C-alpha cells in the first residue's frame, strides 16, 4: 500500500442521470459507477461478480452503450445518462403499472432466468444490442452477450429470450 498518501483526495461533484432522474453527487474520485449505484443510490440490480470486468454482472448502459460499472469511475460518467435494470421498465412509454420491459418479459417467458445473478447485466447487454440491431441473428446475439457470464443456463434459453424479445419489439409476435 501507498504509505505516502494518508488523506484521501478531495471529493468531486458528479452529475449523473440515472434511470431518468438527475443526481448531483459528491464522490471520492476513486469510486466506481458500481459503488455509486449500489451504495449511494441503493440500486443493487447491478452486481459485483468479480469487480475486474470479467464477468458482466455489473453491466449497465451508459448513454445507451453497455459498460462495466465496476471499471468505470463515477467521475468519468460525469454528465452521462445511466440505465440500470431498475429503470428499464420505465423506458416503455405508457406502460401499465407493474408491467415489465419486453426484454424482461421475454427472459421470464423463455425461461432465460435461473439463479438470476447475471440477469440484470444480461438483459441490459441485450437491450444495447436490440436498440442498435432490432433483428440480430443468433451469432450476433451470442457475440453481444459474449462478455456476460451465465453459469446456470448454458445460454440456450437466454439466446431464445433475446430472439423472443426481438420479435415482440418488432411487433412480429404479440405476448399471449
Amino acid at each position, binding site marked *: *500500500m501507498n504509505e505516502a498518501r494518508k488523506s484521501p483526495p478531495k471529493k468531486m461533484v458528479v452529475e449523473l442521470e440515472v434511470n431518468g432522474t438527475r443526481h448531483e453527487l459528491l464522490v471520492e474520485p476513486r469510486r466506481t459507477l458500481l459503488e455509486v449505484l*449500489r451504495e449511494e443510490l441503493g*440500486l*443493487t*440490480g*447491478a*452486481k*459485483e*461478480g*468479480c*469487480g*475486474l470486468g*470479467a*464477468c458482466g*454482472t455489473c453491466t449497465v448502459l451508459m448513454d445507451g452503450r453497455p459498460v462495466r460499472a465496476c471499471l468505470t469511475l463515477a467521475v468519468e460518467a460525469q454528465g452521462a445518462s445511466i440505465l*440500470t*435494470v*431498475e429503470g*428499464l*421498465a420505465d423506458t416503455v412509454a405508457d406502460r401499465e403499472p407493474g408491467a*415489465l420491459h419486453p426484454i*424482461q*418479459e421475454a*427472459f*421470464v*417467458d423463455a*425461461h432465460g*432466468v*435461473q*439463479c*438470476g*445473478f*447475471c*440477469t*440484470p447485466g444480461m*438483459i441490459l447487454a441485450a437491450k444495447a444490442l436490440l436498440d442498435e440491431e432490432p433483428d440480430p441473428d443468433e*451469432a450476433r*446475439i*451470442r*457475440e453481444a*452477450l*459474449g*462478455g*456476460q*457470464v*451465465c*453459469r*446456470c*443456463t*448454458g*445460454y*440456450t*434459453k*437466454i*439466446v431464445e429470450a433475446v430472439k423472443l424479445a426481438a420479435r415482440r419489439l418488432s411487433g412480429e409476435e404479440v405476448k399471449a
Partner: protein
Amino acid sequence: MSRYIGQSLPRRDARLKATGEARFTADLSLPFMLHAAVLRSPYPHARIVRLDTSRAERLPGVKAVLTARDTSGVKWGVFRYTRDQEFLAREKVRYVGEEVAAVAAESEDIAREALELIEVEYEILPAVFDPLSAVADDAPRIHDHAERNINIHVPIHVGDVDRAFDECDYVHTERTVSEEESYFMTEPYAVLAHCDRQGTVEVWMPNASPHTKAKGLANALGLPVSKVHVRHVSVGGAFGGRSDMFPGEYIAARLSQMTQRPVKLVYTREENSIAVRQGHSMVVESTFGFKRDGTLHAVDVTAYMDGGAYSSTGPIATSVPFLCFEQTYRVPNVRYNGYRVYTNKPIRGMIRTHGRAWACNVDMQLDLAAAALGLDPVEIRRRNAVRTGDTTPTQSKIFKMDSLATIKAVAEASRFREKWGKLPKWRGIGIGCVSVMSGFPMGIRGGSAAMVKFDEDAGVTVISGVVDNGQGNENVVLQIAAEALGVAPGAIQLVASDTEVTPIDQGAYSQATTLCSGNAVRLACEDARRQIFEIASDMLEAAEEDLELEDGKVFVRGSPSRAVPLRNVIRMGLLKGKNVIGHGSFGPNVDQTREWIKNPKGQLAAAFSYGSAVVEVEVDPETGFVRVLDAWVAHDCGKAINPKEVEGQMEGGLAMGGHGGILLEACKWHEGANLNPDFLGYKVPLAPDMPPIHPFIVESEDPFGPFGAKEGGLSISMCTAQAYSNAIANAIGTHIREFPHTPDRVLEAIEKRAVTGDP
C-alpha cells in the same frame, strides 16, 4: 390429466430477478451494520509463531478483531469423524487463503485497512500439492492424525475381482488425470449476520441447506439451533459449492455477537474461488474386464483425489464417482479404492460434474472395449446399461429407470450409427451415459417436511424447507402444491428456507429436493385436501371420498353443480374450530445404516435418474481446437414437473460438465497458489462458445417421486463430459487421458498419434 405438472410455467422468481428486485446477500443492509474483512494466509503451510492484532484494534472505526483466541475451538466436519477444520487457524495454516483473523469495522475500507495492521509471523513449513506426492513416506504431514496424509479411504469390494478378470475376454487398464474444476457461481460468497440482544442470531447467505448451516453454526457458537435463524435469500448459484459450513458465516456471526451489531462480510471473487470450495483433482487408474459379448464383468479402480487442507464432504466426494458408475453400467465384480488425500491446497467439495477423470475413464474403457470386441459404442452401452429391477453391487435396488430410452433417444436423434466410422476426417461423434441418485442417506437431516395453511379468503401458503440455488426448486414445489390442491400456482405463497419457520429439509445438494421436498409438499397438500373434504362433506352432504377440489371449488364428482367455493369451506372450518393446516413429512426409502466408509452397502437412494448424451465435434488438426457441431442430451428425470426448467438444467449441465469440463476449465497452480481465481483466467464457457443443444426428456414415472419426478439435470452435466471426451477421441483417433482436453493437449495427442501410428 395434470393441470400444473408438466407445464412450462414461467418461474415465480423470474420477474423479481429480471427487474433487479431479487435481493442477494450482498444487496442487503441493516441499520447500524458493520462490515467485515478476513485476513488470510498467503502461505500454503506455515506455523503461526506470533499474531498481534493490537494495532488493528486501535484503528478508529474498528469494532472487533477476531482470531482463534476468541473462538470455542469447535471444529467443523460434515461427519463426526471428519471434524478437522477450525474456522480460524489456531497453530498453523494449511492452505493459501485460510482464515487467520477477521475484523468488523464501520466501513469496508476501514476493515481492509485494519487487516494490514495485523501482524502475523509465520514459520514456513514444507508443503505438498498433489495427492501422489502427499501419500509418499517422506511427505510433510499436514494433520497430525492423518498418516501419509490420507484423509478418507473408501474401500468397496464385491464379488471376486481377480478371478473374474481371468474369466474375461478383454481386460484393459487406463490411467486418467484431471485438474481441479471450480464452481464460479456468479455470486461471490457473502454473509450478513445479526446477533440481537436476546442472543438470537439471524443469518443470510447463499446456501444449499439452511438447516445444515443453522445446525453447524449453532454448534460453533454454542447456541441451541432455535437461536440461529438462517433466512431466505436469493442465491446466485451453488453447483455443490454452497453445501457445507464455511468459516465466513461463523466469522460474521461471531463478530456480530462480539459487537451486538449486524455484520456483513462479502467475499471477493478470489476469496470465493480459494476460500470456499473447489472440485477435486484426481488420478484414476482403472482395469476393466469384458466378456466377448461386450458385457462388463469386472472392474478394479483406484482413485486418488486431492482433497485440499480439510475434510469437507470428503467421504461423500470419495464415493460418489464410484456410485454413479455402478448405477450406470452393470458389473458383478468390483473393487474400488478411493483415497482422498490432504494437500496444502484449498478445500475441495462436491461439484456438479464430480470426477471427470473418473466418469470419462469409464466411458473411455467402454469405447475401447467396443472397438476391441467389434461392437459400436451405442451397442456396448445398451448391453451394459443398468435398468429397472437391477440391484447395484452395493445393494441399491433400481426401482424404475429407463436408461435404454435415453440411449435410444440420443442415438437416433444424432443418427449415431449412421455416422459412426463414416464421418469425414477430423470429425467425431461420442456418447456418454450416467446415472445420478436422488439423494443419499443423511440421517436425521435426510428428509423433508412441509405445511400448508389457508387464509380466510382461501389463499394458500406453503411452508417448506426447500432451498432454491437457481435451479428452480421453489417452482417445483409450487407446481406440485398447485396440482395437489387444484389451485393455480400464482395463488400460492411459498415460505421457504427460513429455519425459524420451515421444517428440517435435506437441502439442495444431494439431488434429493424434487423427491423429498416435493413429496413433503405433496403430502401436506393431500393432508389439507382431506381436511377440506371432511368439512365440505357436511356442507355438500356427500361422502368425503366423492369430493373433488379444483379451481378453488369443492364439488361432488360427477355433479359439478353440487359445489362450494373453497373459501367457504375454509371459513366453515374456522367457525368450527377446524383451521385447515396440512402437514406432510417424507423420508426417502433408503438404508440409514449405510455408511460411506464403514458400511457402503444398502439402499442408497429411493430413485435413480439416467442421462445419455451424444456430441458431434470437429477438431482443427492444426490448432487442436474443438468445435462442437451439435449436442443431443436425453434425461430420464422421472417426470418433468416443468419441462423448460428441466431443459434449462440439461443445457446448463452440458455447459458446465461437457463444454467447460472437457474443453476449458481447470485450476492452475503455483506452489499452492491458485493462478486463476478470476473470471478471466478460469474459463467458464461464454455464449459464443456454446453449441446447439437438443434436449430430450424421458419420463419413466418414478414410483416414489412426487407425480413421478426425480433428480433432474445433474445426470446431463456428467454424461456430456463423457460424450465430449469420446467424440474428440473419435475425431482424432486416440483418447486423451488428461482433463480437460484443452487445445494444447488435443494437438499433442494428435501429434503423438502421428508419431506412434496409434490407430
